[in-house]
């Protein structure tokens, strides 16, 4: 178990380093960042001044290690637009994204898992059919469009919920529904297929043959095995919810990380964009690593193996 976890952590560390290099490199994708900062109307002298002020005149490798070094101590640089530390801006915004992401994730799990189980218990039954419709439509409807349409219907026509902003908790209702709607199909699908696979095994028949009631057979024998693949997927989905909220935040005018990233892109505030990409990627690595470790804890076969 220990070698497994340390190996997993080593890979995670390597991924983090690569991702940091990639998001750092993004800054230079457009050519000269100094000119980008100076703006299209900027003079050559301005660009030169910026180059020296930001240290763009140094070798790229030096700049990268400088950046990683300060990132490690919690300094992600200065925002070019606001001229305040990036961490400060992000700190103000990250709460909205985390709230939205985690609530949506929770809602998605609460909907997807029981639905997946019910669908697996009676394949081709009416619950299974409804689940299939939800899954197929969830994968075909663009999230931003569903968001806009729900604003039109529930915000404008019926006036049930505020149409934008997160001034009150009601402002989260539509974004949470829309965002969780996208996590449900995959989670449901894997719960269903995992359950169907497990329910067909001999150990489920053996459990029934012991005279255990169906309720116990499902909760003790089936679910425990069916959730194993779900854990990894759930981590991936949570990561995608957090990074996917960029579209939803701009639809619902929520001042979260995603909206900040988008606005920063439009005003060429690259240090902020870099930092957000890095944070989201690290969150993803953290979540999937935790999921792998959790899986190893849950599955005795992995626990024993190195």
């Amino acid at each position, binding site marked *: 178990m220990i070698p497994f976890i340390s190996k997993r952590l080593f890979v995670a560390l390597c991924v983090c380093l690569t991702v940091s290099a990639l998001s750092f490199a993004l800054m230079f994708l457009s050519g000269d960042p100094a000119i980008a900062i100076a703006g299209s109307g900027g003079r050559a002298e301005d660009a030169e001044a910026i180059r020296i002020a930001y240290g763009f005149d140094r070798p790229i490798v030096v700049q990268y290690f400088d950046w990683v070094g300060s990132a490690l101590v919690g300094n992600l640089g200065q925002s070019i637009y606001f001229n305040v530390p990036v961490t400060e801006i992000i700190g103000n915004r990250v709460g909205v994204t985390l709230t939205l992401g985690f609530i949506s994730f929770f809602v998605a799990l609460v909907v997807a898992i029981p639905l997946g189980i019910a669908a697996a218990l009676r394949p081709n039954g009416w619950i299974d059919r409804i689940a299939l419709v939800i899954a197929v439509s969830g994968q075909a409807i663009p999230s931003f469009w569903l968001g806009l349409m729900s604003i039109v219907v529930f915000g404008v026509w019926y006036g049930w919920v505020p149409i934008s902003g997160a001034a009150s908790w009601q402002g989260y209702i539509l974004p949470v529904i829309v965002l969780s709607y996208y996590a449900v199909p995959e989670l449901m699908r894997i719960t269903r297929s995992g359950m169907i696979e497990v329910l067909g095994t001999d150990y489920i028949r053996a459990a029934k043959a012991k005279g255990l009631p169906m309720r116990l057979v499902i909760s003790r024998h089936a679910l425990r095995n069916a959730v194993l693949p779900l854990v990894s997927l759930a981590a991936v989905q949570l990561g995608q919810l957090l990074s996917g909220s960029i579209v939803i935040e701009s639809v619902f005018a929520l001042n979260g990380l995603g909206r900040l990233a988008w606005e920063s892109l439009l005003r060429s505030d690259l240090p902020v964009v870099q930092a957000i*990409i890095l944070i989201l990627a690290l969150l993803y690595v953290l979540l999937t690593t935790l999921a792998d470790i959790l899986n190893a804890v849950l599955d005795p076969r992995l626990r024993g193996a190195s």
Partner: protein
Amino acid sequence: MTDATAETKRASVWSKMRANTGVMIGGTLLALIVLIAVFAPLLAPHDPIAQDLTRRLLPPFWHDRSVPDHLLGTDHLGRDYLSRLIYGARVSLGVGLGVILVSGAIGITLGLLAGYFGGRIDMVISFAITTRLSLPIVLVALAAVALGGASLTTLITVLGLLLWDRFAVVTRAAAQSLRHQEFIMGLRAIGASPARILFLEILPNMRAIILVVVSLEVANVILLEAALSFLGLGVRPPTPSWGLMISEGRDNILFDPWLIALPGSAICLLVLAVNLFGDGMRDIMGPAKK
């Protein structure tokens, strides 16, 4: 495989396709949209980018104020909505196809190499896959398009360079299992070159699962293109992209919700068609892993 068995195999796939409602509905719908995209210039009643500021925001035909000349109304610049929708199919399908060519080439090559050779090569490529999966795709794509300058070419290149992961994962697994099959072992024994084995023997055996991944990815790309265009960092106006149309219609969402309802429905319909076709083909082709 002899010609005769290939023939019967093809015939049986075809008959299974006809028996599968999902494939039939999805396939027909998809074929229809492809035809619309190909023959857009013949089908569109107007120039999709010609503005007529005297005829702005005309409603579609089911509305009282509608004009017969503009069946689905006009947008905020007086452009014919039906024509824009028809040309929009070109953008969606074009981006979908273009991205798949790039991402498929990258992903399949990497997957084949990793799965067939294993060892260090596999380690490096698997690491690349893990790294790619950890990147927040929408944000990175947005940033890259913003920095590269929004255009169709940038969009296709960026998405193509980002979305190869599923191809790589699937072909890697398939190559791993094929590697140990007897006919491949036999070819290796008689000294066939790895390139020959990979591209002439292993790759053709993966047609079915690659087809399934293509359909999944096309749907994915179409949705991403729409989202990026909606955020103003996909294709550039006045190109008639469905995502862009939704973004442009957003300001008039209160009084003319059809401005976003129509292009959104078009996206849903296309993605649904691709998904139905792909899911059905996956069922037909047998248990292809995701």
